[in-house]
């Protein structure tokens, strides 16, 4: 059928509104500060979005499947410190990358074990790991940032390709890969299925526990990558960094159309959501909104995102009710 082609690029009303919102935010901040529209600033926005974007990929998977992870902020800081420590002890750069990613994956497994084996709510389980991982980030380095001098490592944050920093490319490539997996593979389909209804999905042949393991492993790996790139950009592993990172990631995902009621959302929307939130955050800084007020503004943005999620849900339900009335009247 020809509509399978249409399906690959989903341009629904939600995405158009998001795009218009990004344009609107850009126009608003450009009026307030003409430097906002400069090329450097646009790249800065993308760089700022790259870390939250990476985390948003994992959150998107999890939220679609009715899970959530509150630990990535801690894990990103932890991975940065770990990477910095390993490289400063003379470990080979590629080995550092591999080990850090492996540790991230293990921590993902730990999160999933709490959920699968002792039946904790994901919210609670990852709140536990959030504080434990943050604790270990401080313990490993004694609370002091660890400087990075290795040139290969620094390049991770510095290298540019076609004018864009590596961190931006990593986010874009990961979004493409994981967007493809989400929409075009067995695994992706299973994520939607268990988010809609775990029991029915299991009876339809899915293995919800295995999918939860895989999703948290992915989240762990993405956080580790994020930690390596971020520490490279900072030239140091910082145990206190990235607090509330998951907040930006979740806000971006929800703005992008991922619903907390499960089973709904796609990667294209999440990309726009993340860009919108970073365009907003950067704009606030550029027009000198005091940082305390920025917290309030971000909270308001999340509230807006959740309200739009609610309105979308309500509209879906209304449309549904009408359709049901029609279907029932016809039979």
């Amino acid at each position: 059928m020809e509509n399978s082609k249409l399906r690959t690029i989903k341009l629904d009303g939600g995405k158009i509104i998001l795009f218009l919102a990004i344009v609107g935010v850009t126009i608003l901040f450009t009026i307030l500060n003409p430097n906002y529209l400069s090329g450097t600033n646009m790249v800065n926005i993308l760089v700022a979005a790259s870390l939250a974007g990476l985390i948003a990929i994992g959150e998107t998977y999890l939220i679609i499947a009715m899970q959530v992870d509150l630990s990535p902020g801690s894990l990103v800081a932890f991975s940065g410190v770990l990477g910095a420590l390993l490289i400063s002890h003379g470990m080979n750069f590629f080995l550092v990358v591999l080990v850090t990613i492996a540790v991230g994956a293990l921590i993902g497994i730990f999160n999933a074990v709490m959920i699968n084996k002792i039946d904790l709510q994901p919210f609670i389980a990852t709140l536990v790991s959030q504080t434990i991982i943050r604790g270990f980030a401080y313990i490993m380095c004694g609370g002091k940032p660890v400087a990075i001098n290795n040139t290969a490592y620094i390049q991770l944050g510095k290298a540019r390709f076609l004018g864009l920093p590596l961190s931006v490319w990593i986010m874009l490539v990961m979004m493409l890969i994981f967007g493809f997996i989400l929409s075009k593979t067995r695994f992706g389909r299973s994520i939607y299925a268990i988010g809609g209804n775990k029991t029915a999905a299991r009876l339809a042949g899915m293995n919800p526990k295995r999918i939860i393991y895989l999703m948290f492993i992915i989240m762990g790996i993405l956080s580790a990558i994020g930690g390596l790139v971020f520490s490279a950009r900072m030239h140091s592993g910082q145990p206190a960094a990235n607090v509330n990172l998951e907040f930006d990631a979740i806000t971006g995902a929800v703005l992008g159309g991922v619903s907390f009621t499960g089973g709904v959302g796609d990667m294209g929307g999440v990309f726009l959501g993340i860009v919108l939130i970073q365009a907003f955050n950067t704009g606030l800084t550029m027009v000198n909104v005091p940082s305390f007020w920025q917290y309030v503004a971000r909270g308001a943005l999340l509230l807006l995102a959740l309200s739009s999620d609610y309105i979308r849900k309500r509209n879906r339900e209304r449309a549904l009710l009408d359709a049901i009335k029609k279907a029932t009247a016809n039979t």
Partner: protein
Amino acid sequence: MKNSVEFQHITKYFPGVRALDDISFTANGGEVLAFLGENGAGKSTLLKILNGDYQPSAGDYLLNGKHVHFQSPHEAIESGVSVIYQERQILVELSVAENIFLGRMPVNKFGVIDAGLANKKALEIINDFGLAGIISPIDKVKDLSIAHQQMIEIMKAYSRENLTCICFDEPTASLSDSDIDILFNIIKKLRDEGKVVIYVSHRMSEIKRIADRVAIFKDGKLVTILNASESNEQKMIKLMVGRDLGDVFANLDRNQHIGDVYFEVQGLYSDYVEPVSFKLRHGEVLGFSGLVGAGRTEIMRAIIGADKMLGGKILLDGREVCNTDPHEAILNGIVMVPEDRKFEGILSNLDVGNNITIGALDQNSNRIGVLDQKAETKMTDEGIKEFAIKTPDSKKLVVELSGGNQQKCVVARWMATKPKVLILDEPTKGIDVGAKSEFYNLICRFAKQGLGVILVSSELPEIIGLCDRIIVMKNKRISGIVERKDATEDRLLALAMADEKIN
């Protein structure tokens, strides 16, 4: 003023079904109106509209001649409508008086609870109910018998001065005969005081005893209202179940060529079912009959690995198979359409197409798990066509279809996996009569293709009309196997309820 409850053209939709269809009646104070109907006839939905748990999709609800729009059970209670449910809704750790006046305990002028006054008022009510000396206001409710706990609930409703209407939902389910006498005396008392009493039950003997009029429901419609004194049991049953299904079964094109045994279950048991053994032949429709809770669904769940199989063997084509989870069962060719369509069958957030292809993800993907969208589209289109699923296209959300069409999606899902054994657990539950007969034809078609079909059903006509052999279960065990030629409703019921008190 005389109490009354009036429903005018009340209709209620749920996803996929019209639970109530244009219900109109008036219940007057001073009479007991009984609601009679099979499971799923709409009685519970009606009660939930009465007490504000549900809001009608259309129609008017009048209490004492005034329009009411209850948004919650609390509002209904405040307005004088109480429903006494089978499950007790009382706080067992509190005293009798505290329960009766829950949320409106009498207070003195400083706003402090006046326990003495509460106990005094509670005692008056207890006396009214003729239970003086048996129940004391200061008793803790958990120390009372089940029947007396139920009385407390009735007292709670009765203590409201504006009580207009009191509804009983299968109130005798857990009561002994002497308790029932007490309950009936109280119901008569409430009636004589001019309250509207609505009594929901499917026990004929009780209805004859207590009801003045009987409203009979079937498939969400009010069939008729009879005067209890002028009607007999046979007449009521006929109105209750009387569907024109006789012809449907008579005209079925059933499979006449049953093959050899190819699927065998030996001594299978789980946490939920005692060891069972049975055989299935090619092209055979094997029925599982029995009361709700007899263990039929539990066997099927153990077979497909949804529940852990603790012992026994499953043989398919002479090979032992072991299904540790439903996924493995699918790979082995054993699939099940589950009983609860809404929570176990359909995936409500996905569209029709994805609901059909979700069981065949392995079939439609390559080694690294990338799905072949052409194959999926083909499978979807074929499923919609083959099972005549009424949907404008495959992108429609499955919950937007009617119940019967949702169920067809689930059947299409499993038939697309080319199964060797098809298990249908109550496949026609909650779908309308027309769609039911479509399913009966489908089942016969599958059997003709040589597929062994296991049909679990609580509807006896369905089991008798469709099955070649019928296994009857009782208390998690097989209590008998009946051949088609010997199958009658009496025989099956006797096996299902043997050694139990038949009401």
